[in-house]
């Protein structure tokens, strides 16, 4: 029995998400891949999970910072820069 044979369906399903994320150790990934290659049920589950994760990411990553938010942030940073410059300006010698 090879090391890959130790992976059963329950083990593979428990690791599907981490495998999709590329977070399994190389030996684990090889074991999962070997099981997927010979198990149509797990392979179908893996494919479905992959598509769903990609779809979910595509949808949530479509959210963008509104232009008004960007504009106010740029203004706040410009204001912070102004404050910094004025705080660094040499003091008027007549104040001494």
């Amino acid at each position: 029995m090879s090391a890959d044979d130790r992976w059963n369906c329950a083990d593979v399903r428990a690791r599907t998400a981490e495998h999709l994320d590329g977070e399994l150790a190389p030996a684990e990934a090889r074991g999962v891949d070997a099981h997927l290659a010979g198990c149509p049920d797990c392979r179908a589950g893996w494919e479905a999970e992959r598509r769903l994760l990609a779809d979910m990411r595509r949808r949530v990553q479509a959210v963008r910072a509104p232009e008004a938010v960007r504009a106010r942030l740029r203004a706040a940073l410009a204001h912070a820069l102004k404050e910094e410059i004025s705080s660094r300006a040499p003091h008027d010698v007549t104040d001494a």
Partner: protein
Amino acid sequence: MDHPPSPQARHAEFTALLEPLLDAAYRMALHLTRQPADAEDLLQEAALLAFRHFARFEPGTNFRAWLFRILVNRFYTRYRRTDARLTYDDGAVARGASDATPAGFFTRVPDPSAQLLDRLDAQAIAAAVAMLPREFRAVCTLYLMDDLSYREIADVLDLPLGTVRSRLHRGRQLLQRALRSLAVERGLVAGEARAVPTAEAPSAREVTDVR
């Protein structure tokens, strides 16, 4: 002899690094706070804080992780009192989601999972993420919204890698349940079937952060 950069040069360098990250930072803030107005405040506070401490940023290191860490820390500082009455136990998470528990978003969903997701729009998914308890929300948000690796998520949240793994494992299950609840609530799927037949997930009111 090298002179420190002028404030104008530092500002230009900072904004050049910040601009490409604004969408991701806004998404992060929105999913943490759940409210657009709060998200804008949080984003602005974090950006100003980062600008003021930009001298501490080491050029060549991960600016995104650095900025997000400031944003998340600011969120925890600002909102800690809101949920202070609640408790959270990573051990309970680990007990509730063993290695044998399927960790995918849609594993064992009674109805075909693609159909469930097809019936929910981006806002519904965002709402489901927003329903997650705070510590799961942070991990899942970084995971979904910005494709960060587990290591990067651990760095941003200043958590051990194992904690990120366990929270993601459980977070996926909670998200699955939240999505299904939303779908049932909206009459998109029948309500009698269970989303996760394994260990009970704690409700959002039972769980929060102890960082």
